[in-house]
């Protein structure tokens, strides 16, 4: 049930960044990754999202009502450092493209574009080209992307960098809402996210070269 990662190890270039990381998250569970710069948080998230092949181990997601396990990436939203929006298109065009393209895993549980923009507190400016917005506004609309198509798992990489306090709160309430609906959240961060009851995983960074491990 839920998201299960077993014995994950990954490398960048030649060095192993981490080994033997396992965790499991049930519906409504959240896991926060912390650690110094370069300790491998982003790498772990990309492994979970299926964007990077792990050196060993596996990640899978099993839906609540039963059904078979499948790659976690397919049931997940991934929000990286970049927002995956085209600056030339308006916010509306961007969002409705992703709504269509990502499809609705939960069968219509995603919000419509207007509602999502309201939810992130920027209802009035969804008609502007994405490129015209400030860094924080862009980030908010990137959150809106998570809302337009329902996916049980959210994978977030430093979601609140460059956000102001109000946006931080907004983000925290979005995440709690998602958890309350039975979602799962996995986030890497340097700042406290204001989530209660979330597990925390401290990354140490640098698990050594392959030789060290063999030895």
């Amino acid at each position: 049930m839920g998201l299960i990662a077993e014995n994950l190890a990954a490398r960048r270039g030649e060095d192993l960044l981490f080994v033997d990381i396992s965790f499991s998250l049930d519906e409504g569970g959240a896991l926060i990754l912390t650690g110094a710069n370069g300790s491998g948080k982003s790498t772990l998230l990309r492994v979970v999202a299926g964007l990077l092949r792990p050196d060993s181990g596996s990640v899978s997601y099993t839906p609540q009502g039963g059904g078979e396990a499948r790659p976690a990436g397919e049931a997940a939203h991934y929000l990286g450092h970049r927002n995956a929006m085209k600056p030339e298109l308006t916010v509306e065009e961007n969002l409705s493209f992703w709504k269509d393209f990502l499809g609705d895993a939960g069968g219509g549980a995603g919000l419509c574009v207007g509602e999502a923009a309201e939810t992130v507190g920027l209802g009035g400016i969804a008609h502007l080209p994405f490129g015209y917005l400030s860094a924080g506004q862009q980030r908010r609309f990137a959150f809106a992307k998570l809302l337009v198509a329902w996916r049980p798992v959210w994978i977030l990489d430093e979601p609140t960098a460059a956000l102001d306090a109000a946006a931080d709160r907004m983000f925290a309430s979005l995440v709690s809402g998602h958890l309350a609906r039975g979602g799962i959240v996995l986030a890497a961060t340097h700042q406290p996210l204001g989530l209660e009851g979330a597990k925390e995983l401290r990354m140490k960074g640098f698990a050594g070269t392959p030789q060290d491990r063999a030895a």
Partner: protein
Amino acid sequence: MMSLFLRDLKLSVRAGGGALIGVLFFMTVVAVVPFGVGPDLNLLSRIGPAIVWIGALLAALLGLDRLFQAERDDGSLDLILMQETPLALTVFVKCLAHWAGTGLPLVIASPLLSLFMNMNEVAIGAVMLTLLVGSPAITFIGAVGAAVAVALPRGGLLVSILVLPFTIPVLIFGVSATYAAVEDPAPFLPPFMILAALTLLFAALGPLAAAGALRQSSD
């Protein structure tokens, strides 16, 4: 998938148009040749089909390197890779959109340029037809190069270089079909059918290979 097609088309039309620059470049290339060759009309109409085809080939390659790089730069590629829909299908749709945005305008512009090259009506029709059938193959081949180059910090030109050798068969059959249409003894259909077959072949192989390369590249 339809939404992907529409978005890509919109992007190529809106952002100042891959379409326009391609056509413009095409015109430049074709317009310069008469200056070189001089006003010898017979010679011009003789080399016309080849020049038009070469011009179209180069113009089609121009914007191709950004096909996936733009997606990577803003992070969309990650989301596309995570999708359940077969990646090859996504690539196929992107190729179609790219072709509709930049290849089709070239085909439409070609009769005009053929006129400059003093080609007769049959030859003009033949060039347009062969371009229509052959140019998608260039896009599909180019997609593989673009997918390989997505990992490169700045792969731009490299794509064209990797891709050009593979487009040579397309060029050869396209040009020879056109010549066959003009000169009576040679039959038009065989090279034309081969051209069509090449396009179909690359339409199947290209997206598959590109999808493979994209999977490799993600990091």
